[in-house]
């Protein structure tokens, strides 16, 4: 992790008497991808709104690139890109027109959207009205829009939700490229595999609190159970056995299994991020 691009210090926000975010603190380094995971109503959207300057925290402080977001909204927003979960595009405008409009809002005169459209695979459809785009095409345009100003911090809210595997893979590749370029990526997703694959670190948020935050590997090591599942055929019957990896006789048990003539398959088993979330919060992510 490099220098901090995002620094959140004891931030809180309530909607009336409902506490949405309850004093969370974390940092995201430049070029780092942070997966921000939590069920609906956990406080993800409120956190994103505060980080992007759309809501002012009622307590604590949010800094992006060392600038207090509450007091430097314009400067901060000039350097971020946001991809919202809802496809809030202008349907009666073309893909090109959508990108040019947002470039103008960033003060970019003479912006040429063709490169951005090519990057998300929409070169051929750039002149079509967005209302004629498929869901996947709209999502790709959303990502292109978030990248219009070559942001230093990229906020992505469920960027691959409901997309076909090809579109999802294309978007993940873009996220990786942006991270390599040096942009910090703040990613919220329900897709645990996606978070696992993409994120350098993962934060679990539940009821406005961050309950765990670390690399996916460390979380699995700390909170998961490591084991090996062995499948064997003995006297015509198929049986399964789970061998824990952290007991004294693990080596002997595995040796016996591998040497057995009835061995069919052997798989390592580790907890998923969802398992860990359930273990930590007692509830699922969806």
């Amino acid at each position, binding site marked *: 992790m490099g220098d901090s691009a995002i620094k959140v210090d004891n931030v809180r926000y309530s909607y009336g008497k409902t506490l949405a975010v309850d004093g969370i603190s974390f940092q995201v380094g*430049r*070029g780092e991808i942070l997966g921000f995971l939590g069920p609906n109503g956990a406080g993800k959207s409120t956190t994103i709104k505060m980080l*992007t*300057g*759309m809501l002012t925290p009622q307590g604590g402080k949010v800094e992006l690139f060392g600038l207090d977001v509450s007091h430097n*909204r*314009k400067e901060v*927003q*000039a*350097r*971020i890109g*946001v991809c*919202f979960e*809802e496809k*809030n*595009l*202008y*349907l*009666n*405008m073309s893909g090109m*027109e959508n990108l040019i*409009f*947002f470039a*103008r*809002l*960033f*003060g*970019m*005169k003479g912006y040429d959207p063709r490169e951005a459209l090519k990057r998300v695979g929409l070169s051929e459809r750039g002149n079509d009205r967005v209302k004629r785009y498929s869901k996947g095409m709209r999502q790709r345009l959303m990502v292109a*829009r978030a990248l219009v*100003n*070559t*942001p*230093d911090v990229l906020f992505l809210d469920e960027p691959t939700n409901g997309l076909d595997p090809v579109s999802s893979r294309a978007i993940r590749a873009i996220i990786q490229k942006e991270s390599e*370029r*040096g*942009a910090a990526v703040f990613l919220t997703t329900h897709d645990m595999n996606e978070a696992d694959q993409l994120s350098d670190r993962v934060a679990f948020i539940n009821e406005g609190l961050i309950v765990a935050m670390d690399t996916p590997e460390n979380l699995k090591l700390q909170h998961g159970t490591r084991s090996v599942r062995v499948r064997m055929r003995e006297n015509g019957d198929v049986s399964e056995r789970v061998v824990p990896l952290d007991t004294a006789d693990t080596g002997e048990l595995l040796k016996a299994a591998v040497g057995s003539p009835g061995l069919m398959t052997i798989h390592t088993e580790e907890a998923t991020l969802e398992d860990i979330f359930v273990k930590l919060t007692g509830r699922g992510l969806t």
Partner: protein
Amino acid sequence: MMQTTSTGRATRLGAITAILRKDLVLHSRDLIFIFLTILSVTTFVTLYWVLPRDVDETISMGVSGNDIRPALTQFASTDEEGLSIEWFDDTDSLRAAIETRDLEVGVEFPDGFMTDVMAGRKTTVTIFVRPNLPEEITGAMQSMVREIAYAIAGYQLPVTEPDGDIVVLGEDRAGDQIPFRDRLRPLYAFMVLMLEAIALGALISSEVQERTVTAILSTPARIGDILLAKGALGTFIAFSETAIILLLIQAYGPKPLIVLVAVFLGAIMVTAVAMIAGSAGRELISTMLLGMLFLIPLAIPAFSIMFPGAPARWVQFLPSYGIVQVVYGATVEGVGWRESAQQLLILAGWCVVFGIAGAFVLKRRVETL
């Protein structure tokens, strides 16, 4: 090493201009409202040019009774302005002419009327009228018959009349009545303003409902930029379209600048209404209904001006009364700045009230998304 952004310097003017251009593009692609605008402008202009340009103040009266003809011809040619007399040989043909609506009123003088009147004998005159003839004209006909009878009998009316029997306060419009088509001008203007208010309301509503406004607010653009851009676009479109239709229906009269100022203030008012309706509406239909909730009461003064006489007192308190009164006064009566100043000031005050309310409601709506 972090790559620097390629972002230029975002300015408020740049953001406002960008939003304005975008809204203009979206507005120009709204086929429903383009169709409605063309339809309404064409209808209003056609109606204006089709309706009669003059008011026919002549009452056509049929008369039967041959022995009264010389006396009545002399009476009508000297005393009664705007009276056209058509003679009938018998009562049946007189009645038929009224029933077929060729005539408005008919008077049947019985045979021997002249002799009876001069001899002081009581006689009966029958007056036929069309069912929809105003009561005051029927009364005037009765009075005229009595007056004719007095004149034939050689009596003077037992009253002393002043030199001018009617004192007109203000411009005497006898013989120069305002045609109905001219009375409709403020209504046409207001209808175009209403239409544009609903179009802008729909544009705002879709911006709010589709959350594109949230995307704008994630950039350096501020909510104030959005309000200014929407306000400027709404006012510009409503004003320019209304100005054009007023030109096409010859509504500028001798004081065009006063009319334009009133229309400009009206455009601000309906733009504010559009902001309120667009913020609260869920989709096109509810936005239209909400818009109508405001616009129908605001249209009442435009309807009231269609009828002769001063509008009811409560109508004069409606915020849009100033628009109608100033447009009508400057167009038809040729009133100047001094006479219009009070109404324009009141109208400007209402614009401030509506403008603040519209901006507040839209701002609140966007903030709670």
